[in-house]
């Protein structure tokens, strides 16, 4: 490039680079600082170009997602046929490149470490991705190198480990925002960000102003909204038709300017270290293989092509630079699917920028201005597909090197394709808009066309860019409301190629993903499809599908929403025979692939996760029991279950509060029911859990009763555990005294807990029902206590869990309140009661209502003659119309049977050492049989065979 050109000396006018030169000169003026510094910078840019051109290894500057760079690259490679291609790509990602053949682009090369070791980054899994799109220079270089025999492809950038090692220095610096950053910053990019997860992106050819002011200045002066648009207008379009030398000079000059204007910070220092690293690897390779530097090409970002670093040359020495050793982090490598919008979100490009780039690339390919390189077997919709380009027309005759000024003064060539293309866009957009509910017509197509041209003219553009077209379409078609799901801007993006989503082919997936694909095959699941697939399984008709169904349940546990059961269940004691699933593994390929980094099979990953959950420092007894439950349901591995169970005992014993008691109780009951139901009996760990739980909850009980933090529900759950598992615990050697002492030590203040304590004491026999009754009556008599009566009631309601036999009494307590309280107290008090019961005793209400239904008469007419059972029992005479006949004891056929055969009852009493007295003097045989007993006797009389059979079974009659 001549100095005159760089200084803006060429005549202003039609030259394609004039606007670019203007913008760059302004930027240099604005940000140079000292008055004379601009000239120095411009002269420096020329030096940069000079230096890059003198380098024996051909430095090929590129920018990311630049079709112009891809075009220039393809042309140059066809012309030069280099023997070695060096690429600015993490050196340890290189082995993955060959796998690109099996994939549909865009995909991203990924390095993944679940447990970073010795890296300054904050914990958690680390992930680095490098997306590859078809419209990129690096893909051309990769495809050329891999498809041409004898050509070596060498990735020379720092390893992934160093990305994170050097990252610390970056983050310490004042700005580390643009370029390489965590994904998901863009708006409407939720799904997009999801594709890459929380990965750190690295890209080849990151070329963007390094500080916000410069970028803002360029955008403002360039009258564009976004950096991608600026690049497209000022660099991309003019460069698309430039020859190789012009291309290189312009790119190096831009890189040089940005470099000279970028602030000296930690990021720049990292960049310099990267350059030293890259050139050292290049020198090493050249020395090792003896390749002629002239036969090699170094593909790097334009920013790096203008490096002032001394060591950045094939002829320089190392200058004392040493590559730091890798840390102990274990990196795993793989490919994950990517998409245009994911790339845009990751690198904060304008929405649609990558799609526009790929549309431009396809246009050039179909116009046969270039013959692109392509990996054999590459899937995808690339325009180059199977077409063989016309070779003669493809390679433009290279103009004399150094004739940049001639090129600059040439008038811009207007591509006849552009006009036809714009027309097609307009027509297609109107059609698309109509399909999306807009009332657009041919008139709109004409208006969009006209408006695009006018806008382009106003914005000093030779022809309308996709951005102009988009603006024009919004102006002409968008009205006050958006009729459908998509607005015009989105429709334009769809029209211009839309979001292309890549996928990773079967052979490039990790073993786990391949295993899943194989095992789901019987269900007809196609992992390549991006749609949601509905799977119906009938295990009764096709029992052979059971393993596949189980795999789905396991995937559900480890992957979450990628597989969703619509119908069917798989839980303790609940396994449905018919299932219906929504499977979207194709869309969530990344999560499946990342699962592959954790293990070789889903089962292994699940086991690891369960173990990790159980041994997590934050694990609670409830969470460990949940893990054990999952192990039983999903893995069927008694050894693992036992291990998790032992861990649960450990965790329970070390817990200091009763917070998780309800959950522990629920889960443990279910587990006990499962083990008893399957006939295997309680395993050792369950018994240990009962023992530990009994002692643990006894210890905690007095404190839980007293502390305000422990809710009444938790205390009730503790009591439930203690009472319901008491027999098992006592059989295993626990001491009941412990529980009695604990209850005796409890002195609650909260009314609900007091009621709960009373219930517990009743259960233990320390408080009779009459005493309970008397206490409640006392409460109701005391007008000062009445307002807190609902709290007592909710305590009683909670007590239905640990002491279910108390249900009639609770009904009585509620009824008494209604019977005895005057209306002026009752009415304001009712809402409080309802509120309290709803809040505290919700789950118990069902039992309470059932009991009430049994107690109260079912019909209105019966109400007059009805006496509550408690009143009957209390009544002095006890001979009311509904009173039970004396001497019938509990009543019922069973009692009568016992009464008739007193001998057996006496024998049992004698064995137990109890002095029993029969309540009625009669010997029983001659007593009046109740209708129930008569019926039973009549039934037995009618069917003597059954009785005889039973008798035969029991023994000799």
């Amino acid at each position, binding site marked *: 490039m001549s100095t005159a050109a760089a200084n803006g000396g060429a005549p202003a006018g039609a030259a394609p680079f004039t606007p670019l030169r203007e913008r760059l000169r302004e930027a240099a003026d604005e940000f140079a600082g000292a008055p004379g510094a601009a000239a120095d910078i411009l002269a420096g840019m020329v030096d940069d170009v000079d230096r890059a051109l003198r380098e024996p290894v051909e430095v090929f500057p590129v920018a990311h997602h630049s079709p112009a760079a891809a075009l220039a690259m393809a042309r140059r490679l066809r012309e030069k046929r280099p023997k070695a291609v060096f690429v600015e790509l993490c050196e340890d990602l290189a082995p993955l490149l060959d796998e690109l053949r099996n994939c549909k682009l865009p995909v991203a090369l990924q390095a993944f470490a679940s447990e970073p070791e010795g890296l300054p980054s904050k914990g958690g899994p680390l992930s680095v991705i490098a997306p590859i799109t078809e419209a990129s220079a690096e893909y051309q270089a990769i495809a050329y190198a891999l498809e041409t025999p004898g050509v070596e492809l060498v990735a020379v950038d720092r390893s992934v480990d160093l990305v994170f090692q050097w990252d610390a220095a970056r983050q310490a610096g004042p700005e580390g925002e643009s370029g390489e950053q965590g994904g998901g910053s863009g708006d409407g990019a939720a799904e997009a960000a999801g594709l890459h997860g929380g990965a750190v992106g690295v890209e080849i050819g990151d070329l963007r102003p390094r500080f916000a002011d410069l970028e803002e200045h360029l955008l403002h*002066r360039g*009258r564009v909204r976004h950096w991608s648009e600026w690049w497209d207008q000022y660099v991309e379009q003019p460069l698309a038709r430039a020859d190789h030398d012009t291309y290189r000079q312009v790119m190096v000059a831009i890189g040089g300017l940005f470099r000279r204007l970028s602030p000296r910070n930690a990021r720049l220092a990292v960049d310099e270290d990267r350059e030293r690293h890259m050139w050292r690897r290049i020198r090493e390779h050249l020395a090792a293989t003896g390749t002629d530097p002239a036969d090699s090409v170094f593909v790097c970002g334009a920013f790096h092509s203008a490096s002032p670093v001394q060591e950045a040359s094939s002829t320089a020495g190392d200058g004392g630079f040493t590559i730091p050793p890798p840390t102990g982090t274990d990196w795993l490598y793989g490919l994950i699917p990517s998409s245009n919008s994911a790339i845009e979100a990751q690198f904060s490009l304008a929405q649609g920028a990558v799609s526009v780039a790929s549309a431009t690339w396809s246009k050039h390919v179909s116009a046969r201005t270039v013959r692109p390189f392509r990996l054999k077997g590459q899937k995808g919709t690339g325009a180059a597909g199977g077409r063989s380009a016309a070779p003669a027309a493809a390679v433009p005759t290279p103009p004399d090197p150094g004739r940049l000024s001639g090129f600059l003064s040439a008038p811009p060539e207007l591509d006849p394709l552009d006009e036809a293309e714009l027309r097609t866009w307009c027509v297609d957009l109107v059609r698309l808009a109509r399909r999306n509910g807009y009332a657009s017509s041919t008139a709109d197509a004409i208006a969009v066309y006209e408006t695009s041209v*006018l806008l382009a003219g106003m914005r000093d553009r030779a022809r309308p860019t996709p951005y102009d077209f988009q603006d024009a379409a919004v*102006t002409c078609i968008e009205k006050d409301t958006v009729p459908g799901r998509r607005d015009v801007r989105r429709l334009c993006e769809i029209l211009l190629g839309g979001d292309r989503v890549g996928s990773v082919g079967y052979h490039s997936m990790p073993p786990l993903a391949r295993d899943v694909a194989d095992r789901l095959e019987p269900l007809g699941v196609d992992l390549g499809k991006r749609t949601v697939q509905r799977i119906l399984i009938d295990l009764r008709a096709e029992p052979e599908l059971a393993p596949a169904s189980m795999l789905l349940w396991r995937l559900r546990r480890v992957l979450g929403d990628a597989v969703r059961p619509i119908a069917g269940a798989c839980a303790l004691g609940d396994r449905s025979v018919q299932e219906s699933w929504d499977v979207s593994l194709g869309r969530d390929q990344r999560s499946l692939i990342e699962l592959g980094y954790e293990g070789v099979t889903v089962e292994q990953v699940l086991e690891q996760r369960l173990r990790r959950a159980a041994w997590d420092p934050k694990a609670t007894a409830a969470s460990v029991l949940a893990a054990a439950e999952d192990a039983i349901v999903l893995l069927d591995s008694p050894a693992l279950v036992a291990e998790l169970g032992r861990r649960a005992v450990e965790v329970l014993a070390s817990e200091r509060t009763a917070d998780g008691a309800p959950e522990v109780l629920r889960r443990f009951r279910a587990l006990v029911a499962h083990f008893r139901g399957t006939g295997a009996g309680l395993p050792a760990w369950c018994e240990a859990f009962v023992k530990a739980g009994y002692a643990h909850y006894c210890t905690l009980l007095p404190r839980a009763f007293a502390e305000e933090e422990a809710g009444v529900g938790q205390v009730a759950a503790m009591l439930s555990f203690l009472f319901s598992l008491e027999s098992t615990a006592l059989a295993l050697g626990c001491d009941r005294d412990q529980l009695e002492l604990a209850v005796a030590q409890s002195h609650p203040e909260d009314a609900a807990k007091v009621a709960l304590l009373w219930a517990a004491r009743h259960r233990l026999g320390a408080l009779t029902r009459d005493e309970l009754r008397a206490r409640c009556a006392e409460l109701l008599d005391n007008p000062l206590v009445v307002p807190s009566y609902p709290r007592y009631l909710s305590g009683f309601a909670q007590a239905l869990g640990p002491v279910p036999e108390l249900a009639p009494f609770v009904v009585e307590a509620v009824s008494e309140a209604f019977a005895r309280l005057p209306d002026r107290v009752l009415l304001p008090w009712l809402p409080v009661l309802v509120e309290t019961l709803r809040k505290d005793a919700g789950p118990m209400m069902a039992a309470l209502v059932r009991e009430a239904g049994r107690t109260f008469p079912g019909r209105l007419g019966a109400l007059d003659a009805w006496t509550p059972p408690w009143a009957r029992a209390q009544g002095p005479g006890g001979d009311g119309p509904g009173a039970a006949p004396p001497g019938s004891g509990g009543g019922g056929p069973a009692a009568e049977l016992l009464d008739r055969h007193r001998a057996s009852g006496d024998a049992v009493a004698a064995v137990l050492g109890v002095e029993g007295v029969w309540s009625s003097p009669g010997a029983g045989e001659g007593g009046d049989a109740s209708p129930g007993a008569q019926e039973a006797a009549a039934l037995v009389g009618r069917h003597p065979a059954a009785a005889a059979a039973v008798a035969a079974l029991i023994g000799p009659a």
Partner: protein
Amino acid sequence: MTDQMLRAPAEVEYAQELAWLESVDDGPKPFTWRLSPKMVRAFVLGSEPGDGLDREISQKWFGDRTFVERAIVTLASDRGLLLIGDPGTGKSWLAELLAAAVCGDSTLVVQGTAGTTEDHIKYSWNVSMVIAKGQSREALIPSPIMTAMERGAVGRFEELTRSTSDVQDALISILSEKYVSIPELNSGDNTVFAKPGFAVIATANSRDKGVNDLSSALKRRFNFVKIPVVSNRRSEAEIVRFRTTELLRRHDISLEVPPSLLDVLLQSFTDLRAASAAASGDDERLESALSTAEQIGVLEDAILHSHFFGDSTLRARTLAGSLVGSLARRTPEDLAILNKFWHGVVEPRGADEDGAGPWQEFLEGGKQAIEALS
């Protein structure tokens, strides 16, 4: 001329700038436009060093450049331009500037109201002249839109959606056929054809949506440009400063607005907008749209108050009073919201500064004003 007008239209106010731009403009001009589209843009948005102009052109409308470009391009095309947005977003001001730059006359305005009739859009008759001489072109009173057609100028229709649908639809034929026929007159002279350069700029308030919806036939003939509420703090500050300077000059008041008070005003509006956005129902939302125009109104009120009743210095106390006075429209809902705002947002801000800043005074002033109104 501007001395005798309370408020001069844009073409008078910026007559010099327009004349100068016209003199240096060598770009292609559509129809009979005074300026080329690029110069119209420069006039509205101010000049850039890259435009290559010797003289600086001030920025008059603040907002995204794309909106202006889209509006200009629409005027050059076959369709009408409909600027739509919340009240106070500068729609009418943009329409005025565009009309002034394109044809040098921004006063051909029809104001849409419920009482607007078709006569206001087309023509009416001078009744006494009709009685005296019969119906003739002399007895015809052309509407502003018709005048614009005759001259090839830009006609403006303010608040299009406030007028009834049948009146709106009178525009359809004007926008598509570009002529108005006058059946009362004899043939030969009974059609007024629009001259090249004729265009219509309408504005509509997005809050009026649903009152008188545009028919789809009319929608088709308009390009919609949505003007959003300015949320960028920097450009909002610029707008407020720009409009206030103009106002001070108009009233001949020499009073300085301290930047710290401007900050207080902008911050309060930002906070109130955030609160409005988070509110769940209309009762928890101020009735005001909290637009930039509203901010200017508050500042204007405070300035006038300090000038005529104070010591010619703008104080935070006065500003707080004006803010409460302007925004409290419904009692008790708006007052309750402002009360909550003052105690929840302003008070902590006042507590944060060390007694020297304006927030403390702003807090007290606001509390007094709320007390006075409740």
